């Protein structure tokens, strides 16, 4: 605990120093404080997770409401860990990424806010008092809002910032209502929270909306594809990799308050998970901008996490301990895994932006040769996010599959498992399609633009965080059985105490075999590669141009584009996605300028939120009529009010 407080103090130094210290130092002290603070916090989280221990601390608190009550339990620890690790790695990356910034003001405020952002995320995780939690939550949202506005001169960045701001606050309003309902003692202490029978379901819905808007579940996801691309890449890595997971943490924490769950909670989590997962990946496929694509993939992965938690909750309801353990464990592990590979991919996208100057996938290409290390780490991230073995994404999805299969074959209600498996199968195949597009078009082939052909590898300081994250992907992919023990204490928190611990032999055997198949795969691959090398060594190897059916003057414009690659799948799902296609035809005899635009709008933004907020504005416009700014009108309002009060009192 003292270490954790030290971390908070380090963050405070990191937040203040860049503002008052010498300007030369701000790009050094800022990231340094963030790295030290994050690593300290991650260390504390790891310690508590390993020892399965809890800690509690109450400090003096000058405010009238709430108390400074912080603590660690397995659920907190497993979320503190990625916040710390990603927070530190993204700071190392950001140090170089922001070096080119000319404005000193921008640079130092950005680092100050970054330190605050990570610190408040950690504080929200350890908070054991509703008031403290809401305060940390709000400050976390605010500091990330200002971080998104880094390039605030750009119009679209400003717009993205406001969408995020509004989404965050609507979510917070629901959370406030939820905490008031939960608080029966008037102290806002987590330990005194209790579920009232009839309120429990209301509280669950409030938490789903409030925390779900932060996590980015459909249809509350609309801020993600706006805010993530607008922020600097290391910030979007932290936001998408870690911050949205706090929404998941919140949902889980509230489930702990509520005690034994209702089956329909599990069903609604599964339904939301399936919808978010499938729509998220479909929208991702339709994107042309790499960062927007990644942002929609966060929606997809939140869906996968919720599928796991949902099947776990159903397991708790029906008393199927194996299903509960594997489902909740899978959801949690996927949250960890997603933090790793999504921040890796966002950092990779940042490197592309830094080096090739654009994130438009159809303007990239040929970068694997020019940026070999970024390319390799991006490839590893792509395989991991597509849930392909032998990397970490596969392990967590295997957990969830396993939970669903055990639900299907043992419980009386097999349909929940069937829905989860079917959704995961569709999501998996679509994600593989999406990332073969993202990686294949952006990194392979010939450069599609001038700037892409002049790209070069980024500096070592930017590469190291990416290499480390790629290493995590490989490591976590080969240690499934170990990771199950890791998530076990957290999953156990959700089980009723009277349950006897169940034998985990069957998942453990399965996970050990998974590791074995990964090893077998490596051996096969090495053997075949060696065989190929031997065979080819005596034969002639020639270099030539790509086969073009006899056409010998190919240009890079003749390559397949990302839009064309995704088109068949988008077309297959056109009833849900409603893609727009505009084709400018020429009436000339020998047409020269033809153009084709394809664009897929977010239907929720376009058909739900935009009309909703437009009607709000109209309503507000109606209210303007009573604000005439004439003194006599206001005097009349006062007189009328006094009259009304008098009448009310004298009645």
């Amino acid at each position, binding site marked *: 605990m003292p270490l954790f407080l030290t971390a908070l103090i380090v963050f405070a130094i990191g937040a203040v120093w860049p503002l008052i210290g010498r300007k030369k130092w701000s790009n050094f002290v800022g990231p340094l404080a963030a790295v030290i603070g994050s690593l300290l916090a991650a260390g504390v989280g790891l310690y508590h997770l390993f020892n399965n221990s809890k800690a509690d601390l109450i400090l003096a608190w000058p405010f009238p409401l709430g108390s400074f009550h912080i603590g660690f339990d397995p659920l907190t620890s497993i979320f503190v860990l990625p916040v710390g690790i990603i927070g530190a790695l993204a700071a190392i990356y950001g140090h170089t990424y922001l070096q080119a910034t000319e404005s000193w003001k921008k640079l130092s405020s950005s680092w100050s806010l970054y330190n605050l952002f990570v610190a408040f995320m950690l504080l929200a995780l350890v908070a054991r008092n509703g008031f403290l939690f809401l305060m940390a939550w709000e400050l976390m949202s605010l500091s990330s809002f200002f971080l998104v506005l880094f390039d605030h001169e750009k119009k679209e960045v400003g717009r993205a910032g406001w969408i995020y701001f509004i989404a965050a606050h609507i979510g917070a309003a629901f959370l406030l209502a939820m905490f008031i309902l939960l608080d029966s003692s008037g102290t806002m202490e987590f330990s005194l929270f209790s579920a009232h029978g009839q309120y429990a379901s209301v509280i669950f819905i409030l938490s789903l909306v409030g925390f779900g808007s932060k996590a980015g579940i459909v249809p509350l996801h609309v801020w993600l594809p706006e805010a993530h691309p607008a922020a600097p890449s290391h910030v979007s890595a932290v936001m998408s990799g870690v911050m949205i997971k706090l929404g998941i943490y919140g949902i889980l924490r509230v489930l702990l308050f509520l005690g034994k769950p209702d089956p329909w909670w599990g069903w609604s989590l599964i339904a939301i998970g399936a919808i978010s997962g499938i729509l998220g990946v479909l929208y991702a496929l339709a994107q042309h901008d790499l960062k927007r694509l990644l942002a929609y993939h966060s929606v997809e992965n939140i869906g996968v996490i919720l599928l796991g938690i949902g099947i776990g909750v159903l397991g708790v309801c029906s008393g199927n301990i194996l299903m509960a353990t594997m489902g909740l464990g899978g959801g949690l592990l996927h949250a960890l895994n997603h933090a790793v590979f999504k921040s890796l991919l966002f950092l990779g996208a940042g490197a592309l932006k830094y080096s090739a100057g654009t994130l438009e996938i159809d303007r990239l290409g040929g970068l694997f040769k020019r940026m070999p290390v970024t390319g390799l780490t991006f490839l590893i991230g792509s395989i991991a996010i597509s849930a392909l*073995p032998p990397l970490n994404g596969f392990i967590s999805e295997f957990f969830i599959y396993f939970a669903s*299969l055990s639900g299907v*074959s043992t419980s009386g209600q097999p349909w929940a498992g069937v829905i989860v498996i079917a959704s995961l199968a569709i999501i998996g*195949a679509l994600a593989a399609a999406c990332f073969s597009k993202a990686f*294949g078009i952006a990194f392979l082939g010939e450069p599609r633009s001038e700037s892409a052909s002049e790209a070069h590898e980024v500096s070592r300081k930017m590469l190291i965080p990416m290499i480390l994250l790629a290493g995590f992907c490989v490591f976590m992919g080969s240690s499934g059985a170990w990771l199950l023990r890791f998530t076990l204490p957290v999953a156990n928190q959700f089980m009723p105490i009277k349950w006897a611990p169940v034998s985990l032999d069957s998942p453990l055997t399965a996970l050990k075999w998974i590791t074995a*198949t990964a090893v077998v795969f490596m051996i*096969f691959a090495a053997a075949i590669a060696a065989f190929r090398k031997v065979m080819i060594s005596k034969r002639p190897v020639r270099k030539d141009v790509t086969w073009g059916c006899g056409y010998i003057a190919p240009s890079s414009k003749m390559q397949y584009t990302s839009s064309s690659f995704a088109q068949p799948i988008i077309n297959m799902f056109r009833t849900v996605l409603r893609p727009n296609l505009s084709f400018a035809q020429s009436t000339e005899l020998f047409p020269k300028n033809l153009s084709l635009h394809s664009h897929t709008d977010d239907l929720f933004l376009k058909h739900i939120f935009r009309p909703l907020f437009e009607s709000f504005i109209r309503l507000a416009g109606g209210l303007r009529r009573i604000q005439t700014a004439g003194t006599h009108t206001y005097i009349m309002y006062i007189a009328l009010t006094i009259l009304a009060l008098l009448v009310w009192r004298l009645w």
Partner: protein
Amino acid sequence: MRSIWPLVHIVLAIGLSPLLPGIINRTKAFFGGRHGQRLLQPYYDIFKLLRKGVVYSRTTTWIFRAGPVISLASILVALTITPIGTVRALIAFPGDVIALVYFLGLARFFIVAAALDTGSSFEGMGASREMQFTVLAELAFMLGIIAMAIMGKSFSITAIFGGAAIKELPNMATMSHVLVAAALLIVLLSENARIPFDDPDTHLELTMIHEVMVLDHGGIDLGLIQFGSALKIWIFGALFVGAIIPMNTGHAGMNLLIGLGAMLAVAIMIGIVESSMARLRLLRAPQLLVTACILSFLALIAAVGQ
């Protein structure tokens, strides 16, 4: 129960799988009234390719060279998880079917990446179509397997197929086995780029799917890919056989023999399908896969209902 037979199956699969395309081609030749190529022609092709030099496009990177290697390695891993008929797989564990599907996914991912590495429009087109069909094929496959898992009360593919003899199963289950088998057959045709999804004999790059993705591969790389495709037919064939004849004689060697016989029948059947119909229009193909999904779903309903 450990025995030598699973290993024998792997060795036989590696040795005999190129025979399957040979049999398919001979069947097609028979129906076409031609003499056709030799039965062992796929072997000659692969051996010839192994001994040839290679031409690489200047556009490509090491991804292009790694593609065939990694995809063959993952198909081999998938093979170790595949049981044939009622003979258990070399590697069997609860949930192994997920690993099987995802290793095949890894193979596909790398073939697609290698195709995109050439920067050729044709190969991009093939890659895109391959990924499109997979979305539905994988769903049909998974739903079918869950139906089998419910009936077999297990979620290891070996135990599912190795379980009961067909006469012991109630009628509902038999029906659902047949439905799953039909779905698996459609998935087999789609995943192995056979008619009606893809015509391996077509000469027009624009209409191909699988063949166009490997246009630029040559020499040993192409040899590895062709061997991998043959193994893939074997894997799907073995799963199909497992769904249609869960027959257990009690002796593993005998079961293996039955399995091999059934594989021969599957190859001839593919040949007959290919001779008796033309390929579908590309836009129609997904509809057939949706049919497979529906068949699997019906099997699922039947399985849950029993």
